[in-house]
């Protein structure tokens, strides 16, 4: 059994990689590509400022690399086994990676004979005078690193800004000289084309201007390298504890999901806020489905062909066809809206007053009755769970009925009847136990459907779970958040499926996974 579980867990890895790859490729295929919302958000800026801001953000999140490279980088970050220089973890839990080196400026051969040499890391020693507490030392180290990291990003930003200015200048000259194919589909300059048409630029009146801008860019590049050297020196002096364990070649550490582009919070924080809510909804809903559907299916099977059987069959197929959005809208409209019944809250998981509640119902200091945290939660969760649950009934009760009917025709039932076993005992003890197996496998199809259904329900009832988070990340084109969400949803789903298989083996002694 242990080996089986281990194998299944290992098989999850290619599946998870596959699924995140599919999602990643969809993001990359989308119009505007990855991080499109970053570009859109600067809509009112001047074109020049916007180009600089775009270039800065692309640089910061590595969006300028081709999509497959970005994906492999992401995989490298979330993989627990990491290669190369070990990351460090700052006190807020964020991963600090070894600083990126500055990128070679484009067209540098236009402006200079050879590029300035790459800087070497400048060895750095923390000033650890005696008498400081550990805490003070940590603060000091962190401050030194932050200061230099800011200096380096400023130098990098200056370089990017100068590159954007150069691009703009080149673009304008190319347009004036009617040079075609100078820009790619994203509007970026194709430097290869520029190099091939160098004479066009050299003959232009503004060649001097280009030269001047180019040498500024080279200077900025040089300065960026210098700052990098200092920063790398500080990084190598290990201002923060290193992540996980291992050496500087291979190390094992927790996955780094990065920071959300748009919410500037670590993705892990966002997800750890949201995922318990989604799991809570599904964990409440699943037993309800089983507790209602199985008795209905059993009753239908025992009285196969009766009025109850036919009516419940028709009713369940109708429930199954009922769209979740309609159920949600009707529930809110008629049950929660104050113009109609208004019995339930319209949105959220807690009422605003719930902050001060005790866990169980109680009488507060003013002598008023308070529902307490638990009742408040149940009251809020009623409608979402109702909408989540009803679709599952149909499938499960039909399956129960079919499985029971299959078993009724078995020889052992006839034998039991011949022995004079009471009808109820046959149904409950013999037939039902043997019909349990397909019901456990049904979990495999119900659970994913519910997990996805909760995306819709969370949106309707404004429950801050994974579904809403996913929709937000889609609307904002937030690569980090969306990929992490996908990974989480798929992971939860796969683990639930594995649990179903283990239960299957427990329920049926004939099945073993050896």
């Amino acid at each position, binding site marked *: 059994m242990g080996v089986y579980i281990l194998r299944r867990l290992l098989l*999850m890895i*290619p*599946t*998870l990689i*596959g*699924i995140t790859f*599919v*999602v990643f490729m*969809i*993001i990359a*295929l*989308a*119009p505007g590509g990855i991080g499109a919302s970053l570009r859109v958000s600067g809509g009112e800026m001047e074109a020049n400022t916007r180009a600089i801001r775009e270039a800065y953000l692309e640089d910061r999140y590595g969006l300028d690399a081709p999509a497959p490279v970005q994906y492999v980088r992401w995989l490298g970050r979330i993989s627990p086994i990491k290669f190369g220089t070990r990351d460090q973890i700052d006190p807020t839990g964020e991963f600090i990676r070894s600083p990126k080196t500055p990128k070679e400026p484009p067209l540098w051969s236009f402006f200079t004979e050879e590029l300035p040499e790459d800087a070497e890391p400048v060895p750095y020693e923390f000033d650890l005078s005696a008498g400081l507490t550990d805490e003070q030392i940590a603060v000091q180290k962190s401050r030194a690193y932050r200061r230099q990291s800011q200096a380096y990003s400023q130098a990098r930003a200056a370089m990017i800004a100068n590159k954007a200015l150069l691009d703009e200048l080149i673009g304008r000259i190319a347009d004036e000289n009617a040079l*075609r194919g100078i820009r790619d589909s994203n509007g970026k300059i194709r430097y290869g084309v520029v190099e091939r048409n160098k004479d066009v630029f050299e003959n232009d009146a503004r060649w001097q201007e280009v030269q001047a801008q180019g040498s500024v860019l080279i200077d900025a590049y040089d300065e960026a390298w210098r700052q990098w050297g200092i920063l790398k020196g500080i990084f190598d002096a290990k201002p923060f504890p290193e992540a996980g364990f291992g050496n500087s070649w291979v190390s094992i550490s927790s996955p780094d999901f990065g920071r959300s582009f748009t919410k500037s919070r670590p993705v892990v924080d966002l997800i750890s806020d949201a995922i318990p809510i989604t799991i809570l909804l599904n964990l409440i809903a699943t037993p309800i489905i089983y507790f209602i559907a199985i008795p209905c299916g059993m009753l239908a099977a025992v009285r196969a062909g009766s009025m109850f059987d036919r009516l419940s069959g*028709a009713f369940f*197929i*109708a429930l*199954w*066809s*009922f*769209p*979740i*959005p*309609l159920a949600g*809208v*009707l529930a*809110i*409209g*008629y049950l929660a*809206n104050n*113009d*109609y019944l208004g019995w339930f809250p*319209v949105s959220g998981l807690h009422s605003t007053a719930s902050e001060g509640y005790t866990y169980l119902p109680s009488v507060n200091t003013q002598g008023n009755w308070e529902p307490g945290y638990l009742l408040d939660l149940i009251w809020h969760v009623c409608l979402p769970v109702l909408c989540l649950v009803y679709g599952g009934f149909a499938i499960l009760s039909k399956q129960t009925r079919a499985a029971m009917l299959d078993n009724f025709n078995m020889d052992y039932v006839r034998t039991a009847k011949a022995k004079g076993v009471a009808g109820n005992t046959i149904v409950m003890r013999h037939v039902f136990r043997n019909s349990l197996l397909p019901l456990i496998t049904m979990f495999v199809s119900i659970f*994913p*459907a519910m*997990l*996805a*259904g909760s*995306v*819709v329900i969370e*949106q309707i009832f404004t429950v801050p779970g994974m579904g809403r988070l*996913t*929709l937000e990340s*889609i*609307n904002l*084109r937030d690569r980090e958040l*969306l990929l992490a969400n*996908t990974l989480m*949803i*798929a992971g939860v*789903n*796969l683990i639930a*499926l594995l649990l179903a298989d283990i239960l299957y083996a427990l329920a049926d002694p004939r099945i073993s996974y050896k």
Partner: protein
Amino acid sequence: MSKNANPVQADKPSSVTGVQLAQGIGHQPAQSFWAEAWAQVFRRPAAVASIVWIAIVSFFAIYAPLIASSHPLMLRSEEGTSSPLIESLSAPDVALLVIGTLAPFFLFFRIGPLGFGPKLRLIIAASAQIGLVVVFARMIESTFTHRDAVGFVADWGRSDLFVPVSVALLCAVTMIPFLLISIFVYRSVGRSVFVLGVAIVAGGIVSWKWTPTLNNFDYRARESRGLVDATYTVVPYSHSHSMPAMFNRPPGATPLDAAWSRLEAWQRRTEGRSARYNEEELASIPITADTMQELRAIGRSVDGLVSYPMDEFVDQLESRVDDGQITNLIQMREAILEHDAPVHTIGTDTLGQDVLSQMMHACRLAISIGFVSTGIAVVIGVTIGALMGYFGGWVDLLLYRVVEIFMAIPVLFLLIVAAGLLPRNTYVMMAIIGCFTWTGAARFIRAEFMKLRHTDYVQAAQAMGLPLWSILFKHMLPNGVTPVLVESSFLIAAAILIEATLSFLGLGPTGQASWGSLLRNASGEAGGFLWWLAIFPGAAIFLTTLAYNLIGEALRDAIDPKLKKARV
């Protein structure tokens, strides 16, 4: 055998013995597999009702542009008579009208030597061919005449030869696949003539309706100025005709309702109160000159929505006020509301678009998304499933990992991601629904083919050296495809639900009426609940998915051998 035992003349005996059966008594002529299955489906009232409902939805899918349009059927002016309705039809509209009108006649009347099955295949092939031409024509048109098009693209888009050459090329290219596959007869002459004929029809439709349609709805304004005389269709509103003055109006609302409620709101505003008036209060409010002035201003704002000049109507009202026939607001309300005006039978939505018209136009999306995306899913699933089942081994292992990837994540989740990120249009949506729901079909076919590949006839086919595609799709597939075809009914239902859900989340196709996006507006921003936006589109989605599910259920029971045995 005696003459009495002739099966045609024999009465149907209540019970038949084996000997009698051997004599031919009680013999029933054999039916084809599918004919028998459908005959059993038609014995169920629920399934028949479902088929009727689907037929109704399909009817609106085809004829909605003729039934519900803001463009008048006839427009008479001094320049002559024209029909903006016909002008407004787009190429897909015309293609659907042609196919939808001709196909049933062709199918259900005994024309020509062909049977039902071949005729159906012919119609499907012709629809696919015309559909391809229409879709690609729109793509070509938008690429070459795009605003941002540069260089030779724009030059070519503007040239005179552009339309005829593109249409001819397009028709010729789309003919190729249909010439290659054997659709109905193996005689290549008949096939070529048929495909050529279809191409000519498609080319005609596309070149007639090349440029995008009119989107100007000023007919009523022109009518009220007395410039034209218009005759409208049954539902005189297009799905995209947005009337800002008419937003969120309940069923039965007219522009005059809107005018009255704005007058009442103005009255409340002047008195500085927020609660609505009751009848007695209304009766006590007199009509002043200010009221009439406000009414005139309101009248001008809804002038484009009615066929007569509102100024004249207000003049009429004013003269009745002067005569003392109207003295208070309640009489004014009656006078306004009893006047004739076009009705929004089931209300309007948040943008002031007619709900009934949108419901009708959305039928097309529902029907087409169901069929096309299921078609895509079945084709992908059958191909991959056939390969997995036939070859087994590492092919199976590898491809089954792909199937597992799709099983590992909720499909709806993946669809939400894809629909949210990719361009919002109908074709993309059909493609993604098709591409993410094929795993069920693949698993069915895989299981069937694993059984079938060891059967004698398959081995005989292999021994004869038939090509792989022939073994897979000509010999094995017809014996293994039944469960997939039955499941596809459920897949259609699922696709319609998915479309509704995506549109509800705001990820649906833009510029397209959809039941889901109507439902989306039901909980108004101000916390109100617009019930007509929930009930009518919701019922349409529900009934359509229910219908497909019931048909699928009935079909499954009809072909399930276990149940059949139980029935006999």
